[in-house]
C-alpha cells in the first residue's frame, strides 16, 4: 500500500497504544484500578480535539486574510472532526465517571465547561447552515470560529482550575505533575496523544479533499 510516512506512523502508534496500553504495567491505585488505562483513550480525545480545533481556527484566520475557498473548507471540516472528538471525549468521560465517581454526570466544573464548549461549537455548525451566500457564510463563520476557540480555552483550562473539581490536576494544582503521571503511563500516554491526533488530522485531510473534489465537480458541471 502506498501511504505517506505520517499515515504509517499513525497506524503504528495506534496499534502500539492498544496493545501496549492494555498489557503494560500500570500503577495500582484505589477506586481507579485498571480504569487508569482510560488515560490512553479518553484524554487523547480532548488533546486531539484541541489540536484539530486549533487547525480550524488557524484556517479561519487564514481565510479572513486571504479568502480562498480551500481555507474555509479546511476550517469547516476540522471543526467537524474536532466536534466528533469532543463528543467522544464527553461520552468516554461519562462512562469512566460512572464507575469511578459514581455518576455519569456529577456536575463537575470540567464536565459542565466542556459541555458548554461543545454547545458553542454546535452553534458554529448551525450558523454555517443558515447562510445562502457562500462568501458571507465563510466570512461570518470564520469570525465566529475565532470567538468559539477563544471561549473554549478558558472553559477547559482555566475556569475548572479556579474551583474544586473531580478531575485530576484541578482545584489549584497543575495539570500533570509527578504524582499524577508516572513514567510507565507516560510511555504510552504521549504516543497515544500523537496517534489519536494524527488519526483526526487524517480524517480532516480526507474530508477536505472530498469537499474540494465536490466543489470542483459542481464548477465543471
Amino acid at each position, binding site marked *: *500500500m502506498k*501511504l505517506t510516512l505520517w*499515515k504509517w506512523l499513525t*497506524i503504528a502508534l*495506534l*496499534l502500539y497504544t*492498544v*496493545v501496549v496500553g*492494555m*498489557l503494560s504495567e500500570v500503577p495500582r491505585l484505589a477506586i481507579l484500578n485498571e480504569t487508569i488505562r482510560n488515560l490512553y483513550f479518553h484524554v487523547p480525545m480532548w488533546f486531539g480535539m484541541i489540536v484539530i480545533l486549533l487547525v480550524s481556527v488557524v484556517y479561519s484566520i487564514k481565510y479572513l486574510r486571504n479568502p480562498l475557498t480551500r481555507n474555509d473548507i479546511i476550517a469547516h471540516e476540522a471543526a467537524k472532526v474536532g466536534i466528533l472528538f469532543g463528543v467522544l471525549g464527553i461520552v468516554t468521560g461519562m462512562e469512566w465517571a460512572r464507575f469511578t465517581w459514581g455518576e455519569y454526570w456529577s456536575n463537575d466544573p470540567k464536565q459542565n465547561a466542556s459541555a458548554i464548549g461543545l454547545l458553542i461549537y454546535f452553534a458554529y455548525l448551525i450558523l454555517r447552515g443558515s447562510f445562502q451566500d457562500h462568501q458571507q457564510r465563510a466570512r461570518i463563520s470564520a469570525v465566529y470560529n475565532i470567538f468559539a476557540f477563544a471561549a473554549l480555552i478558558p472553559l477547559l483550562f482555566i475556569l475548572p482550575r479556579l474551583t474544586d473539581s473531580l478531575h485530576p490536576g484541578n482545584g489549584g494544582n497543575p495539570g500533570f505533575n509527578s504524582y499524577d503521571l508516572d513514567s510507565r503511563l507516560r510511555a504510552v500516554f504521549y504516543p497515544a496523544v500523537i496517534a489519536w491526533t494524527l488519526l483526526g488530522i*487524517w*480524517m480532516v485531510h*480526507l474530508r477536505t*479533499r*472530498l469537499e474540494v*473534489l465536490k466543489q*470542483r*465537480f459542481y464548477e465543471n458541471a
Partner: protein
Amino acid sequence: MKMHKWLLMLLLTWAAAFSTPAAAQSAPEQMSTVEFSSQAPAASQPEMADVMRQDGKIYIVVVVLVSVLLGVLFYLINLDKKIGRLERELRQ
C-alpha cells in the same frame, strides 16, 4: 475486482478474532477433565497453547481491539485511495 480482496481481508480478520475466543471457551472443560481423571502434578500436565488465556484472558480483548482498529484503518486507507483516484481523474 479490488473489492474482493478487501472482503477477503475482512473475513480473515474476523476469522482470526473469533477463532481465539472459541479456543478459550473450550479450554476450561479440557483442563477440568485433566484435574479430575488424574491427580498428576503440574509439571506433567499436557502442554497447551495457554498464551492467549493468561492474565484473565486480557489477550483476547487485545485481539478484538486490534481487529476493530485494523478494520477502521483499512476502511480509512480504502477511502484515501478512492479519493486519490478521483483527484487524478479530475486532473486529467
